[in-house]
Structure formats: structure tokens, C-alpha cells
């Protein structure tokens, strides 16, 4: 099945290939963002002893679609004194930067839209694009609350980018590569969460900060700044900001999974998974389906583990949101510069030492 698809794929002109990839990624992004809102509402409801959405469709499963419909029908308000062009463009910039990160998300073995050799650098570069969109929104709204939200957001994202970068350097040092697929394959021996536990914590914390979520949700702190930089937005433009936030939740979880939790690798011990693979191969060979079916099965297997780990990560983020209060702006900055940054440097030293030990046991 996979092989036939691949042979067809190679006959397409490159431009068509890019277009198809773009459409698929955008669709995936929209779907993920929409259904994460549902997932979050259900998780929060369970934690807060409520029921959550249960009216639209069975178990409220059509709720995101209903919400989308509602947002599309809303009036698209542009404030009179706003900078209309920037104001209109900002949501797209924010959402696009989310989609760009999706390019290197390893959904499964071989299922990466573009497995760039500079994957890590690309991730850091693209994820900081969000700031531009947020500042455009805050500035163009011509509203003091929006401006304050945007200022906080920039200060926060810029400060948290540094420890995040240092934490990722640890991963790159251990893996000896910046390519996401190679980083994952390197974890066949041991998931990086074990040697890089400190780095994992730093990346998780900075990741939550990058998504602007509790306890780092100062840019849109409801009780202080009403809605931060989205105060003046309505309709689908607000929806895009909203979707971008959930998309970034997915992306952070995906990269936590990829860099620290072994990505698509199965958590089963190697002999067991090898035995299972042999068994499956034999069964398929007996049925005469080995050639056509095995690669598909392996792909789905890797996707299953990837999405399972990502879901666990996302659940953790939602859990944090339900539990923790919000930092104050100076505490937030102090935390980034005084605690996380030194710790991330320490982590880099640890990673270097571990790299030496690693090379003793597994010389390249």
C-alpha cells in the first residue's frame, strides 16, 4: 500500500507535492487545534467536577465544529482607531508560525513533512515568529490592555527562548545531530528523559511559557488585562489566535515527545518488541501479505506510540492549567533569568559529560 502510494507520489511535479503537503498540514493543524479545545474542556471539567460539553453530538464531540461555525458567523470588528492592515494580518502571522512548526513534527516513522537537517534550529527560529504576530496584534489594536499584553508577551517569549535553546543544545549534543528523525532514532538505547531529566523539565516549563498558558498566561491574563492582545478581536480572527494557542500546545507536546520521550519508538523493552515484530511478520507471511501490509502496520505502530505520548504530555499541560495560579510579571522574568538560564547551562555541562560517557559505550 505504502509502496504504491510512494511510486505515485514520485510522478507528481514538485509544486503539486508542496501544495498537497501544505493542504494536509493545514488541515491537520486545524483539526488538532479544534479538537484540543474539546479535549481541554473535558479534562478541565473532569478535574473541576463538572460535565463539560455534552450537547452537540454524542458526548459533545461536534462541539468544536459548532464553535467554529459560530465564530465564522460573528461580525469581524476592526476598531475605528486601529491600524487596520496590521490588525487584520496579525492572526494569520500567529497561526502560520504554528503551521510552520508542524513541518518538522515527526508524526510517525517516516511521516515527517520535511525532515530538515537543521531541524532544531528551524524549530527555534519558527516558534519565535509568533512574537511578531502578537506584537502586531497588540500594537494595531490601539488599546492599552492589548499593548500591555503584547509587551508582556514579547518580554516573556524572548526570555524563555534562551533556556529553551540551551535545553535543546543538550539534546543535540547527545544525539550528535540536529535532524529530528535522527534524534529519535538515537533514543533507541535510552530515552533522553533519563540522561537529560533537567533538560526535560526546562524544556517543558519553557514550552508552557511559549504557549502562553497557565501559570505563564500573563499576556492574556483575564483578571488583569481582560484578554490581553486579543481584547479587540472578534469572530474568526479571535478564533485563529485561539487555535494558534492550542496548536502550540500540540507542538510543544510533540517536541517534548520527540526529544525526550523517544518520539515514535515503542516503550516496550527491545526483546519483547522484536519478538512481537517477528510474530507479526510470520503471521503476515503465512497469509501472504507481508510485502503489502507490513510497512503500513509499522507506520501505524509508530504513529500510535507517538500520539499516545503526545496525549499524555497534553494532558499534563491541561492538568497544570487546572492547578496552578499565575505568576506575576517580575517573578516570571526572574524565574527565567535567575533560575532557568543557569540551570540550562548546567544542563549543557551535564550533557557534555554524558556525551563523553556515551561515546565510551557506543563509539560512533
Amino acid at each position, binding site marked *: 500500500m505504502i509502496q504504491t502510494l510512494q511510486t505515485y507520489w514520485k510522478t507528481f511535479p514538485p509544486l503539486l507535492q508542496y501544495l498537497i503537503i501544505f493542504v494536509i498540514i493545514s488541515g491537520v493543524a486545524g483539526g488538532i487545534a479544534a479538537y484540543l479545545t474539546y479535549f481541554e474542556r473535558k479534562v*478541565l471539567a473532569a*478535574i*473541576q*467536577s*463538572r460535565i463539560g460539553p455534552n450537547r452537540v453530538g454524542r458526548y459533545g464531540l461536534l462541539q468544536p465544529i459548532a464553535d467554529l461555525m459560530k465564530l465564522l458567523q460573528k461580525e469581524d470588528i476592526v476598531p475605528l482607531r486601529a491600524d487596520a492592515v496590521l490588525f487584520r494580518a496579525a492572526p494569520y502571522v500567529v497561526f502560520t508560525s504554528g503551521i510552520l512548526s508542524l513541518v518538522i513534527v515527526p508524526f510517525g516513522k517516516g511521516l515527517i513533512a520535511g525532515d530538515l537537517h537543521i531541524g532544531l534550529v528551524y524549530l527555534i527560529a519558527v516558534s519565535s515568529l509568533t512574537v511578531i504576530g502578537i506584537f502586531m496584534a497588540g500594537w494595531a489594536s490601539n488599546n*492599552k*490592555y492589548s499593548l*500591555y499584553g503584547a509587551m508582556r508577551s514579547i518580554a516573556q517569549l524572548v526570555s524563555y527562548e534562551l533556556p529553551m535553546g540551551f535545553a535543546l543544545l543538550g539534546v543535540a549534543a547527545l544525539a550528535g545531530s540536529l535532524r529530528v528523525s535522527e534524534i529519535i532514532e538515537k533514543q533507541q538505547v535510552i530515552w533522553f528523559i533519563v540522561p537529560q531529566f533537567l533538560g526535560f523539565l526546562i524544556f517543558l516549563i519553557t514550552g508552557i511559557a511559549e504557549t502562553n498558558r*497557565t*501559570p505563564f*498566561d*500573563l499576556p492574556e*491574563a*483575564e*483578571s*488583569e*488585562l*481582560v484578554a490581553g492582545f486579543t481584547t479587540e478581536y472578534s469572530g474568526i480572527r479571535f478564533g485563529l489566535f485561539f487555535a494558534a494557542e492550542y496548536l502550540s500546545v500540540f507542538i510543544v507536546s510533540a517536541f517534548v515527545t520527540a526529544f525526550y520521550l523517544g518520539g515514535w519508538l515503542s516503550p516496550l523493552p527491545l526483546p519483547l518488541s522484536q519478538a512481537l515484530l517477528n510474530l507479526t511478520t510470520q503471521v503476515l507471511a503465512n497469509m501472504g501479505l507481508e510485502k503489502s501490509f507490513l510497512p503500513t502496520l509499522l507506520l501505524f505502530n509508530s504513529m500510535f506510540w507517538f500520539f499516545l505520548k503526545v496525549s499524555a504530555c497534553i494532558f499534563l499541560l491541561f492538568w497544570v*492549567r*487546572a*492547578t*496552578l*495560579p*499565575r*505568576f*506575576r*510579571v*517580575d*517573578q516570571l522574568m526572574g524565574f527565567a533569568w535567575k533560575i532557568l538560564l543557569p540551570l540550562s547551562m548546567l544542563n549543557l555541562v551535564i550533557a557534555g559529560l554524558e556525551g563523553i560517557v556515551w561515546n565510551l559505550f557506543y563509539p560512533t
Partner: protein
Amino acid sequence: MSPLEIVREEETDQVWLNMGPQHPSTHGVFRMLLKLDGEVITECKPVIGYLHRGTEKIAENRMYFQIVPYTDRTDYLAAMGGNLGVCLAVEKLAGIEVPKRGQYLRVIAVELNRIASHLVWLGTWGLDLGVMTPFLYCFREREEILKLLEMMSGARLTYNYIQFGGVRDDLLPEFYPRCREFLQTFPSKLDEYQNLLGNNDIFQMRTRRIGILTREKAISYGTCGPVLRASGVNYDLRKNQPYSSYSDFDFEVAVATEGDCYARYRVRMKEMHESVKIVQQALDGLPEGPTNAKVPWFFKVPKGEVYSAIENARGEYGIYLVSDGTSKPYRLKIRAASFCNLCVVPELVKGMKIADCVAILGSLDPVFGDVDR
């Protein structure tokens, strides 16, 4: 160009930010004009009056029994206290003696209402600090109290339960087991909130040493209730001027000395524990007998004036009543606890951050029906 000029060039403008009256964390219709230097507040001008309904003026044109429902609407989160305040003042002037059972029922009603009011405060303050879950937990517990109060009075928010001479109805038989069950389970719920919120590091970072109100300032501003007691003043009208049989009950006055937001949090949490104790004792020692002294609907209050105050959830709820001997008051002044506590806001928020301002305002627990009256 001299160095001085460079500095002047880099000076930034201060921004006036209009916070409220429509704002998620102004607890109703409070408006603050904040002068901001970056995130720091350099000046705060509070604006009140958006919920002014002229309760005191209306009271001058109403028969005494008609005034009680209006007091429900002053401090609407602790409406029983409003009822009790006005009833005590009128009874004091008219010389009405309330039977013991009536007094105990009043205590049960007011203390349950105090817990409900503090729960709303805890939940909404949590929302101010950015944590959502305690709000829903608090409202879950408050719901049980509201059901109990509904059993007593038939209403969930504006009770009009306490009347001149006693209370409107005796308790239903179903009330006792349900109330006892609530009293049994509730303290463990409070511990749960303490673990979820009070012991949280971020919560403590946001509330400790924030908005410190010194003992002297607390007294000179005329603050009252938990705000005063959190500043180290051991003053509780239930102890200092016992009314309505409060001297029969054994309870402690919650006092803290730090005067910061966290101290106010601790005082209110302790008060909820103490209220549970009081209700428990009142239920156990509930005397038999009539709930109500015989008071006619229309009655004239002898000429004179009186001030009577009770300890409501937010502090001293005082009624100053002047009677000219007719069936309507000549003047009825309500001393609102929230108003006095709110007065300290401009002083406390100066030099703090926007986020602190929200935390401080929430810790004072103002109710704007009470502030504006």
C-alpha cells in the same frame, strides 16, 4: 548634549489605564483609574457609585418591616447579616426581647451565610490570581449551604429571614441531619483548599508581603472584619460586644499579624473553621420554645436614636437609626464594612504591579452592593 538631557529624552510617559467598571476582576462595578509606569502603579483613583440605589433614603419612606428586604440587597453575599443588623437596631430602640430559640436560629443563619460568603471570596480571589479550579470547588460547597438556607428561608440569596422579634419560620425537620452532615464534611474540604491553593508556592509568592496594611493604618482607616484582624487587631464584635447569644458559644477570633494578602487569606480560612464550630454548638444547644416574640406588622418605635453593629462576613455592619416616634425611621444610616475596607486600596496599590493590584483588591473582598448601598 549634556548627560542630563539624554536622561530626559529617555523618560517615558505614564499611562492612565481605566480599569473597570466593566472588568473581570473588579468584583462588580468598581472603577480604578491607574497611572502606570510600565507595570508599576504610581497612582490610583478609585471611583465608586455605579451600584448606588439609595437604600438609606428609601428606608425613610418605608414601614420598619419593609426595610428588612432592602438590607438583603446591601451586602448580597451575606444577606442574613444585613437582616440581623437592622433587626437588632430596631429591637434595641423598640425594646423587643427575642426568645432564645430565635436568637440561636439567627446565629445559625448568619454563620452559615458567613461561610458561603467566604467561599465566594475564596473562589473569586483564586480567579483573580489565575487559578480556576478552587472557584468551582467553592461553589460546589456553597451550593450545599444555599440549599440549607433555602430550607430555612425559602430563598437562596435574598433571604428576608430574620424579622423583628425573631426569625420568620422554625427549622424543617429535614434541616437537622442535612446541616450536621455538611458540618461534618466541610472542614476536610477546607483542608483540601488549603492544599490546593494555600500551600501552593506560586500562590504564596503572589500573596505574601503583598499589600501590607499596618496595624496603625488599619485602625486609622476604620477597616473592620477580617481585614482589620489580619493586621493584628483582635477585634471581633461577636466577642467584644456579644449580641444574639454569641456569648453562649465557644469560638476563637482569627487574628494574624502580618497584614498582607496571605494573612487575610489565613484569617478568613480560620473564620470558616470557627463558623462551623459555632453552628455545631448552636445546633446541639438549640433550646425549645417560640422562635418569635409577638411583634405586630405595624408598630411605632419610640423617639430616640441608636447605633447597633454586628460582625458580618466583611466586618462591622452598623445601623444608625433615628426615630421620631412614627412607624417609619427618620434616618437610617448603614455603616458598610466593604466601603471602609475599600478605602485603603489607593494606599496599598501604590508602587505595586497591576497583578498585585488585582490580588489586593480581591483580598479586601468588597461587595459593591455594600459599598454603594
